């Protein structure tokens, strides 16, 4: 009985939040774009014109007599060499730009989501620990947080990547462990106000332990505030991944927008006006980061009722 009541309340709350979120036009359009990106990431093999763009067999050869020279501008007629169609042209070694851009969605989303998960898990546990236990724990953990907050994280990422080596997993880890201090600060300040409330005291009076109070009472109240920050962290992570790839510190075997731009830059696309090679991955990065930012700001509006009334 109590369970169904609880469930009904949850649904009601979710419906209300959803309604407020939907009324935010910018945030909602960002959300739609993100769904489209997720769809592309999942169904990339079926949507692309070239199944495995990085395989040697899928690359075009230079066929001078047939008028086929890489990078080839967009064309809708099948190539004489492999028979594939290249709606957004090819790059310098004959890989299909359209298909690579679709596959690049996967790398960006993977890095964005997993790295942010690492950041949030680290930040939330440190923030919870500092806020809840207070005193020396708080002091020590917050000094550590402040320390990582002042470390310039862009140079830090460069240094760590050049020390650790160019592996995809390291890209995720490095971005993940440079992003947590802001989450820790937000969580801590929220925990500080919540733990003084009466219902915590009541829970303790009836014999609830620290673990129970943190899981059942504090965490659910911290979540909404963390949520908006988390979405903004994702956009930062995607940004960082593009940056690392563009400067050749990413994994060369993984197709990503950053490494596509890197190849375009290194092979003279910017000097020879090979616009199709640059604009597809470039626009994709901007669109994805923009969408995550819009959703993040909209969520901030929804989760912070104080802001809503203005």
């Amino acid at each position, binding site marked *: 009985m109590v369970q169904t009541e609880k469930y009904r309340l949850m649904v009601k709350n979710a419906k209300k939040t959803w309604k407020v979120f939907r009324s935010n036009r910018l945030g909602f359009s960002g959300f739609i774009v993100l769904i489209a990106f997720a769809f592309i990431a999942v169904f990339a093999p079926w949507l692309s014109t070239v199944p495995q763009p990085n395989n040697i067999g899928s690359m075009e050869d230079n066929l001078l007599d047939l008028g086929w020279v890489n990078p080839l501008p967009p064309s809708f007629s099948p190539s004489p060499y492999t028979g594939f169609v290249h709606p957004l042209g090819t790059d310098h070694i004959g890989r299909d730009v359209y298909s690579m851009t679709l596959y690049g969605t996967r790398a960006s989303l993977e890095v964005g989501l997993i790295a942010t998960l690492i950041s949030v898990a680290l930040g939330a546990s440190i923030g919870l620990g500092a806020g809840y236990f207070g005193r020396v724990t708080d002091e020590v953990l917050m000094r550590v947080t402040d320390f990582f*907050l002042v470390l310039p994280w862009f*140079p*830090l990422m*460069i240094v*760590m990547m050049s020390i650790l080596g160019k592996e995809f997993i390291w890209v995720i880890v490095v971005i993940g462990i440079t992003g947590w201090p802001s989450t820790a600060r937000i969580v801590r300040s929220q925990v500080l106000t919540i733990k003084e409330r009466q219902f915590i005291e009541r829970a303790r009076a009836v014999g609830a332990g620290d673990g129970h109070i943190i899981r059942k009472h504090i965490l659910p109240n911290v979540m909404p505030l963390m949520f908006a920050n988390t979405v903004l962290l994702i956009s930062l992570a995607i940004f960082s991944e593009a940056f690392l790839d563009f400067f050749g510190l990413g994994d060369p075997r993984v197709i990503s927008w950053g490494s596509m731009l890197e190849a375009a830059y290194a092979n003279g696309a910017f000097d020879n006006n090979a616009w199709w090679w640059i604009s597809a991955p470039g626009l994709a990065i901007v669109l994805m980061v923009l969408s995550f*930012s819009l959703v993040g700001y909209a969520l901030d509006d929804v989760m912070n009722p104080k802001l809503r009334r203005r």
Partner: protein
Amino acid sequence: MRSFILRKSVYLVITLFAIIAFNFFLFRIMPGDPAAVLVPRSGDEALKALVRERFHLNDPLLTQLYYYIIQVFSGDFGVSTGVLKNAEISTILGPKIFNTVILVGIGTALAIYLGVLIGKVAAWRRGKLADTLGMGFALVFYSMPTFLFALVLLMVFAGTLGWFPLKGATSQDYNEFSLMDKIGDRAYHLVLPVIAFTLEIMAEFAIIMRNSLTDVLTEDYITTARAKGVPSKSILNDHAMKNALLPVVTVMAISVGWVLGGTIMVEIVFSYDGLGKLTWDAVLNLDYPLLQALFLLMAIAVLVANFVADIVYTYLDPRVTI
């Protein structure tokens, strides 16, 4: 007030030592013998032994840390192994710091001015066309990777149109110029990098400024001022802006790290001869001693900037010292 500054100074010193120690251990986690990195492949064992001796590599790790701290405070950052073979790092850094400070100084000043202006107008005309345009502009640049925007600028204005130089901070025969020509030459080379840098970091300031000002404008004392018949201009400039600027100062302090990232990208794309490009060269050449010195330098810059911002903040908002 004084005790607050004192406390902050103590934290500054502690953090400084923590950064030095962190910087030391960061470069020790890489696999392999540090001496092998410092000595070129062809180097013989005797040379390696010499290097081990000079950098105290035979001692325990904590003793090495002790020597490292002493070296840092005496301005000895060791010897470059890749970018400029065997040059003292402290002598390489000087001119690069100068170039970067010019770029960052002009760019940041412009970005703060423009960002605050755009945010202010957007908040004041909330929901109107100016707001939509200003925020749209800011959000697009906020979402655009700096290197991409810098590349497009380079391609259009330096490549296709040829209005500005393609690379470098100065012309090749810079040293033979007269003083006026030198300044002109630098300005000419700075235009594109400064534009790229400014627009990128301006966006964040504009967004924060707008949010903070919209918050302040809903407060009761603004309504009171309106009811008293204070002119709108004065409400905005004298009543609201003073309080609204506070969060912006905090964000500026925190974003110094972000600013450094921006310079690195801009300097690499425009081949602008500063610390960012040097960092890049160090990465390409696996010049770890140089990278270590650069990272330390940047971390200290951010630390000092945060310290200054903390002090400035207490003058703007005396409540924080209580």
